[in-house]
């Protein structure tokens, strides 16, 4: 087995595409695991241990609809005020 072939057993197996092997080496070199900030890791662990089992996430699903409704209401109010004071 030639050098570098070991990590190819699950990847590119055809010997006709050697040009991609250099890319795999580069990926191996660049993609190294990083260490998250220990303060973050510990504080999240603490938060999770204190959080009730049901966690309510804020939904952003209706943000757009809310914005439209508020805009519409503001427009109607403005129109009503304009009609009222223009008479």
């Amino acid at each position: 087995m030639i050098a570098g072939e070991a990590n190819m057993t699950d990847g590119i197996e055809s010997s006709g595409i050697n040009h991609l092997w250099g890319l795999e080496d580069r990926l191996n070199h660049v993609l190294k695991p990083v260490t998250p900030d220990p303060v973050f890791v510990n504080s999240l662990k603490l938060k999770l241990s204190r959080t009730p089992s049901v966690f309510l996430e804020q939904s952003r699903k209706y943000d757009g609809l809310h914005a439209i409704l508020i805009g519409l209401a503001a427009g109607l109010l403005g129109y009503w005020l304009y009609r009222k004071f223009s008479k």
Partner: protein
Amino acid sequence: MKKKPVPVNLEITDNNAVKLASTGNAEAFSYLYEQNVKRIFNYIYYRIGSEQDAEDLTARVFHRAFGHIGSYEEKGVPFSAWLYRIAHNLIANWHRDNFRRREVSLEDQIDLPHLGDLPERMVERNQEQEMLLKAIRNLSPDRQQLILLKYLEDLSNAEIAIIMRRTEGAIKSLYHRSLISLREELEKIDKYNVLEK
């Protein structure tokens, strides 16, 4: 179906942690958290390129997992696969809600605090590394996921297939196409850099 309660003072191991956590055992969940937090953070960090947002999304992954652990059913799939799937979905939402952030260059993130050994803070960082990370983030979400699971986690095609809910053959094929796409992305970036100069 209601799950049977598990004795509280049982020793927590890889084999029983999920079962204990799903019955509300906080220590078991802490155990699962410690086993998985680094890998989930890494996965998210490399997908979005911002430490602060990676921390935020990592927290959301575990909050969501914690909130739904009671309904989690073991099907012979690693617990991490479930977390990766949650992370994958949250990243997709993050990109949808913050599409402008996709354009943030890696150079803008150099001075982030507490990065320690994060790639962009490494002294030996060079332009080639930046190009490669940028090219990876230009790939489709599935291709990014595959490459990160393979290189960060050193997972086999079979393990990745479980996480991505595909066959091993499909993963092998996707991997090959991902490398070709990555090479094309690198060529595009390279051409762009030449034109810029």
